């Protein structure tokens, strides 16, 4: 009789835990995405490909605490848009409108940041909240359309993304336009999110108190989903809308609230992105990519707030890698976007990978069991 070893224990663990298998599928998506990036570099410029690739992976460790700080700085908006997408997803809604909510929030945050200088030391807090409120409003619209008119939230959000983009351009031009450089004014210094002790701690990185907002929102959404009746109802509506209604839950209210909260979180992301020195709202007709990157992070984080937090920080490290990629090799940082897109595509196939992982593990376990009985 063969003794049970740690391998058996591990196999049992994975076979009994669907979360563990899903995490493994996320890791496969990340590795797959990185491989796509490497292959594209190898095809286009083999001589620099490996140098570039190691820069993406290890760029994070180049500049000590400053890089860590910047990694978190890049991660914060993506964590928030990721949370926004994930939260809606738990209610069975696909929030492809994060970019629109983010843009809408960003405009109002910057508007308050430029104009309401009388607020003194509360200025940045009010500007931040203005962004969150505006985002909430923009998220509520597809929620109401879905709840009352049964309009597909994906299509509605796509349309609203472009409305928000043109709205922001129009409002920037008519209210806070800096004619000489053809873009919006930056927020007043009192409206910039303070860096506080991060300044010295991370050796002058761009990291600011936005990080606490990301942590706070992660914690709040985690508690809502895991510990409250409201969260239970949201998840229930996500699993089966009709059954939830039958059980006496107000599914219309839940859908609207879920989208409103998702919108608020994206709006905060927009505020945090633009309430900093050196970044300005433009009048170019481009959707902000951060809303879409949130989809990747939400998928990798298995739509759980804490998973999204971890995946968002991973994204931040890629972004740092992309920064050094541009500095040290001739590759441009678009490679990071390519990798992100590949990760999303492979995540879409996640169910398939989960089945494969499960079957392979099962086979190995059966083989070991057989060996034990011989």
């Amino acid at each position, binding site marked *: 009789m063969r003794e049970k070893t740690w391998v058996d224990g591990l196999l049992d663990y994975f076979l009994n835990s669907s979360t563990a298998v899903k995490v493994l599928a996320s890791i496969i998506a990340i590795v797959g995405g990185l491989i796509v990036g490497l292959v594209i570099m190898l095809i286009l410029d083999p001589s620099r490909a490996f140098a570039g690739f190691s820069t993406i992976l290890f760029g994070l460790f180049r500049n000590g605490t400053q890089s860590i700080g910047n990694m978190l700085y890049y991660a914060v908006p993506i964590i928030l848009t990721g949370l926004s997408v994930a939260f809606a997803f738990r209610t069975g809604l696909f929030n492809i409108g994060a970019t629109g909510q983010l843009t809408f929030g960003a405009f109002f945050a910057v508007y308050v940041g430029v104009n309401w200088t009388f607020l003194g030391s509360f200025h940045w807090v009010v500007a931040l909240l203005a962004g969150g409120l505006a985002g909430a409003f923009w998220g509520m619209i597809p929620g109401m359309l879905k709840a009352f008119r049964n309009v597909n939230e994906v299509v509605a959000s796509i349309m609203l993304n472009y409305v928000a983009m043109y709205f922001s351009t129009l409002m920037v031009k008519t209210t806070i336009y800096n004619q000489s450089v053809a873009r919006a004014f930056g927020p007043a210094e009192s409206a910039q999110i303070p860096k506080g002790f991060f300044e010295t701690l991370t050796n002058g990185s761009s990291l600011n108190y936005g990080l606490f907002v990301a942590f706070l929102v992660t914690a709040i959404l985690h508690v809502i989903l895991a510990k409250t009746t409201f969260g239970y109802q949201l998840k229930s509506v996500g699993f089966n809308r009709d059954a939830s209604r039958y059980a006496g839950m107000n599914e219309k209210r839940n859908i609207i609230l879920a989208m409103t909260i998702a919108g608020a979180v994206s709006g905060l992301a927009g505020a945090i992105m633009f309430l900093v020195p050196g970044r300005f709202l433009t009048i170019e007709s481009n959707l902000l990519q951060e809303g879409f990157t949130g989809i990747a992070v939400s998928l990798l984080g298995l739509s759980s707030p804490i998973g999204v937090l971890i995946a968002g920080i991973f994204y931040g490290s890629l972004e740092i890698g992309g920064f050094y990629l541009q500095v040290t090799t001739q590759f441009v940082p678009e490679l990071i*976007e390519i990798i992100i*897109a*590949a990760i999303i595509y492979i995540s879409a196939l996640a169910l398939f990978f989960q089945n494969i992982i499960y079957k392979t593990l099962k086979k190995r376990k059966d083989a070991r069991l057989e060996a034990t009985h011989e």
Partner: protein
Amino acid sequence: MSELFDTLNFLIPLIIASMVPLSLVALGGLFSERSGVVNIALEGIMVMGGFVGIVLMRTLVDSGLPLQLISLIGLITGALVGVLYAALHAFASVTMKSNQIISATALNLFAPALSVFIARIFYGTSNINLGGNYTIPEVPVLSSIPVLGPWLFTNAYLSTYLGIVIFAVAITFLYKTKLGLRIRACGENPQAADSLGVNVYKIRYLGVLISGALAGMGGVIFVLSFATRFQGTVAGFGFLALAVMIFGQWKPRGILLAAVFFATVRVIANAYTAIPGLQNISIPSEIYSMLPYIITLVVLAFASKNSRAPKAAGEPYDAGKR
């Protein structure tokens, strides 16, 4: 009176130039959705088709081939690339039964990033110049027809005529052939189609690949008609085409009407300062630009109860669940 004609002679070719790619790409969306696969990747497919098509055309310009032949090659290349790129969406959504929105989002992000990445490496900049003017100055004889001559046959694009032919062929295919009927059946009731021996998976592949061809070609047309260079984007045109398809209620004739309407709004947004009567009413161009999206939302809100959307669109087909 002659001033009115001058204005129309200025506006109508612009409207036609917008209408052609809009209706073709929307038709692409229609083929995919009528076969049962939601395709919001039109934007990304346009970028991919446009990118490869334009790069090839730019390379061919130096060879001294006639410009219209080059533009034909570019359009066909765009369509082929669109088919290949859309195959990724078909693989994920049909074979792997994945979430169609997620797969399409990945394709929408991948195309601009890859095209900018490659362009920066090979051209040193993300802008690729077309290197030629592809309009047909005058079509012999036809350009002298009163009214229609200046609208359709002066400073025209090859893609306009090609687009009209493709649109006619596509409608005939969808409504008058057995395969067309099968495509429509797979989007409405795939179980019934399957029970009659139709291979739902193959038909859905076909629908998505046709949409890839149309969107890929639409990408090349977009760059040829509206830009002098390719910058890794089609500026939301693919999503506008999606709105055209919805506003047209998933029907070719509806798409045509919606395309006329949206194209007119789009032209007004870009050229209202040159239109007598509008230049005095100072409505900002952004208002016109957001109008198509708002109207689509309103239509969705008031028509979703009796929507014409294919019933099975977005649902992966699983023969085991029949």
